[in-house]
């Protein structure tokens, strides 16, 4: 019954390298759908998908919604404000009620680590993790990895450094797992107060100084620094963060080679990344966004039971 990914996509920690490659390969033909004038194929016609967002999100939610609509699925968005969720209903009751309406898939974003798995273990629908707490955000990492692969080809031996608040970042965790499975070398760089105490045990090396990270890496994935971290006392000030860890063109100019610049967004210009870097020639930030829709189409397609070898044909439909 389940396709090559199993019932759910909960994280990259539990996928094999082959499964990750399969998603990336499947995403490639789907990219083309979004370039058409009529951006719609009938692949998921008749399927009902609920986008269950317990946390504010624009980019991820819109990206999923485009992916679903371009595959002709029927979608409903449920946000935590204004729904029964804000009236104190438990996650399990919310899920059971949705399922009682006979849905096929749930895309969930939730502030608690493990929430996507919690849901997946309790309902029969396919569950896609669109970010659970500080645990994983697999589709974001998949689109980051697809973007890297578009530029580098095979990622084996490639050096990628994740910069910033790794401690609170689900994007970082998913990227670490995914990149390592594909053979890349992964490092993290940031203030130690924003790195997990046991971060090395995730299989990454640590750079304390951004200059050293830039010298080592071929690509930087720069994480958003949330204002709350400063308020919670993890760093003294955003200004100092920019001075010590900000990715600036001045710092990049000293690198022995060009670096690919990724950012999962939304950016704090002038904090973790300077505008001339974000908008510069080596930034692939908007390319990431474009890839996001294709990767999510691939995940939806594969979880719905689509055959990877027919992905190219699946997009043929309604030209």
């Amino acid at each position, binding site marked *: 019954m389940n396709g090559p990914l199993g019932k759910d996509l909960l994280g990259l920690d539990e996928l094999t390298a082959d499964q990750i490659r399969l998603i990336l390969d499947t995403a490639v033909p789907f990219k083309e759908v979004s370039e058409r004038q009529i951006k719609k194929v009938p692949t998921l016609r008749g399927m009902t998908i609920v986008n269950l967002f317990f946390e504010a999100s624009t980019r991820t939610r819109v990206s999923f919604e485009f992916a679903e609509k371009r595959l002709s699925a029927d979608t409903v968005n449920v946000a935590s404000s204004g729904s029964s969720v804000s009236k104190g209903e438990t996650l399990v009751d919310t899920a059971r009620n949705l399922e009682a309406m006979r849905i096929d898939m749930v895309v969930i974003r939730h502030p608690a*680590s*493990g929430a996507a*798995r*919690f849901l997946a273990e309790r309902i029969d629908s396919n569950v896609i993790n669109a970010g659970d*707490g*500080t645990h994983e955000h697999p589709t974001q990492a998949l689109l980051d990895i697809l973007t890297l692969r578009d530029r580098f080809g095979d990622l084996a031996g490639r050096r990628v450094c994740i910069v910033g608040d790794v401690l609170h970042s689900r994007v970082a*965790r998913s990227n670490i797992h995914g990149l390592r499975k594909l053979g890349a070398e992964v490092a993290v760089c940031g203030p130690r107060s924003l790195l997990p*105490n*046991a971060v090395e*045990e995730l299989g990454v090396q640590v750079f304390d100084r951004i200059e050293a990270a830039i010298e080592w890496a071929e690509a930087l994935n720069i994480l958003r620094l949330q204002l709350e971290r400063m308020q919670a006392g993890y760093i003294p000030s955003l200004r100092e963060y920019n001075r010590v860890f900000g990715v600036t063109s001045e710092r990049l100019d000293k690198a022995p080679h060009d670096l690919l610049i990724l950012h999962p967004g939304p950016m704090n210009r002038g904090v973790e990344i300077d505008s001339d870097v974000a908008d510069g020639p080596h930034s692939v930030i908007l390319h990431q966004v474009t890839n996001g829709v294709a990767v999510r189409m691939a995940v939806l397609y594969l979880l719905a039971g689509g055959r990877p070898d027919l992905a190219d044909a699946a997009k043929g439909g309604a030209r």
Partner: protein
Amino acid sequence: MARDLLLRGGRIVDPSQNMDVVGDVLLRDGNVEACGASLGTPDGAEIVDCAGLIVTPGMIDVHVHMREPGREDVETIKSGAHSAAAGGFTAVCAMPNTRPVTDNQATVGFVKRQGEAAGFARVYPYGAISVGSKGETLAEMGEMISAGAVAFSDDGYPVSSSQLMRTALEYARTFGVPVAEHCEDMSLAHGGSMNESAVSARLGLKGIPNEAEEIYVIRDILLAKRTGGHIHMCHMSTKGSVELIRWGKERGVNVTAEVCSHHISLTDERVGQYDTNAKMNPPLRSAEDVEALQQGLADGTIDLLVTDHAPHHYDEKEREFADAPNGIVGLETALGVNCTWLLHRGVMSLSAMVDSMSCKPAKVFGLPGGTLRAGSLGDVTVFDPNRVWTVDPKQFKSKGRNTPYGGVQLTGQARYTVVGGRVVFAAT
């Protein structure tokens, strides 16, 4: 007049009198009448055949949460005391984090009376250290002792004011009772839901570092050293804590300590994929910590084995991990877990384990029992250390089902629990 009760032909293990013989225990009028090799059978005595079983002074768990008053939907003193008896315990000490907090003589008296009315294991009330366990004002310890309190604790919360803890140790010393501390630096532990480790890093859960416990352990040892008060360390979970307690004991500080059965048997790997039945405070720690705690028990640094029995409604545990409440039930699995992980793996001898579960709790907390000497309290535990069974939470007498041992095979189980010369539990 109740009939005499003869526990016949068991292996009597009573570390309080260095006894390890096959023989009989005769109970009369609620007390031990005699204990030793073949006593003969008094006329009309009720006889319990204990051949092949271990007969020990009644086991005492000095750290349980009965939830009454306040959360009778989750556990009552009756269901908790029944659970204790089913696990082989003849007495428990009930923590005061009830609603309202057991910080006054009326509530202490209520807990005691409910325990007596239940008629299973004895229930000794704890009183709170501070009013409302808020850590601000010393509660009325003297009155609570008059009403039956045996020790004081703000368990669930640490006493964050060093001055208040100093005063509590001094004041409780007047009455000769221990002050039991829940060691946790809340500013370090804030928001944490499991051990801080590679596992928490992977799961994206905020961790609670070992130091959150150890900072309080050393602070309280130093305060006990200064005041001469008796500090009792609740639910120790780290290697560092064991070392600090050892340091204190070597210097003659009046410090005692307990460890939970789950902390000597499970590591943080048991959290697996966010299993809320492996969520408790302090959290399950590393293999290194587990080994140090076992060693600490074996060498006497850690005095007591406890459960920290903490029932929760299943709906409350059926939550996102970070939002689920802390705690597991333990009364009905503790003996099996301790036999499986300590006795059968050679960490402790049978008599050392019995000492930590039966004799030392009585000694440390100044409770009656803890011995089978003639004339002492007629509380006896009879268990089969070799009985293999599989934990089925549905069978628990406790209202709680929240255990990390569901489906786990344990070796060792209570067969008879005798309180005041009366069988209050017999295994089927």
